[in-house]
């Protein structure tokens, strides 16, 4: 299946937006780990020391935010768009 990966904000430093080919049936969490396996800076930017997606990283599938503490097993489908971005808090 083909998934469009859109790393935005600081995450675009370690991975450029493009479509990736993955085996059918992979979940969001598996796809992110697969990307991180081949890209150490991206892995460090995305995952914490416990190998969980950092709390201030937004993961959106086709525009809908996922709660990665509960929904990392969500299967992706051909043509899905996976957006990733960190956000800031100051004012």
């Amino acid at each position, binding site marked *: 299946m083909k998934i469009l990966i*859109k790393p*935005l*904000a*600081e995450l675009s430093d370690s991975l450029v937006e493009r479509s990736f080919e993955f085996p059918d049936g992979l979940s969001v969490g598996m796809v992110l780990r697969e990307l991180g396996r081949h890209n150490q800076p991206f892995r460090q930017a995305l995952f914490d020391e416990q190998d969980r997606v950092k*709390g*201030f990283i*937004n993961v*959106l599938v*086709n*525009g*809908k*935010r996922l*709660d*990665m503490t509960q929904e990392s097993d969500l299967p992706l489908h051909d043509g899905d768009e996976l*957006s990733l*971005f960190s*956000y*800031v*808090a*100051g*004012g």
Partner: protein
Amino acid sequence: MDRYRRQLDLWGVEGQEALRRACVVIAGCGGLGSVVATYLACAGVGFLRLVDFDRVDPSNLNRQFLHWPEDIGKQKCISFKEKIAALNQEIAVEAVSSVIQDDLAEEIIGDADLIVDALDNFSTRFILNNAAVKKNIPLIHGAVQGFSGQVATILPGRSACLRCMFPDTPLVKDFPIAGATCGVIGSIQATEAIKYITGQGECLVNRILLWRGEIGSFDVVPVRRNPSCAICSTLCGDAKESKP
């Protein structure tokens, strides 16, 4: 009207009158608040309620340009009110020295037409978001850090709320902020407010704008309302049909 002559071609007398009738709450009298309050006052928003519990500190002066060296130690909302009232004597300005907390948030926002989030932490933002959604008052979110920032406009009942968009409260630490970053993000927030009030253009609804000053790049990401959002799927009041 002469002071508004250069903007009347954009939204006409009708739009200017909508600005004059509008009541906008600016939550946070800091870096973002300096920019938003200045541009909304100059544009002729008729009533500005400026909310902050804090006092001016020397470390604020790199970006919070409505506070001056002689204001150090003064309540931020009072310091803001003095400058904004002098900037445009045709508008009404109210200073509210208060922490935005659960039992006060709805009272603070009152019956405002619009709220601008110029806060500095997500814990308080989520309280403000809850109150805005419950009272069905649009909320313009903005945040900054370093050279980066983000903006989104929330129309309760019609768009993703802050809880739909953000999963967690980022760790609070003493991070750096470039003053000009507040200028970029605060200006976009003020633009959103003016567009909403005058009915011009298209607001950042169900979209979040991300700014990276280091490389001079904007991204706009579509976001969707979460049908099972703990806040906007249960608290939302009746959707407003018309703009002020």
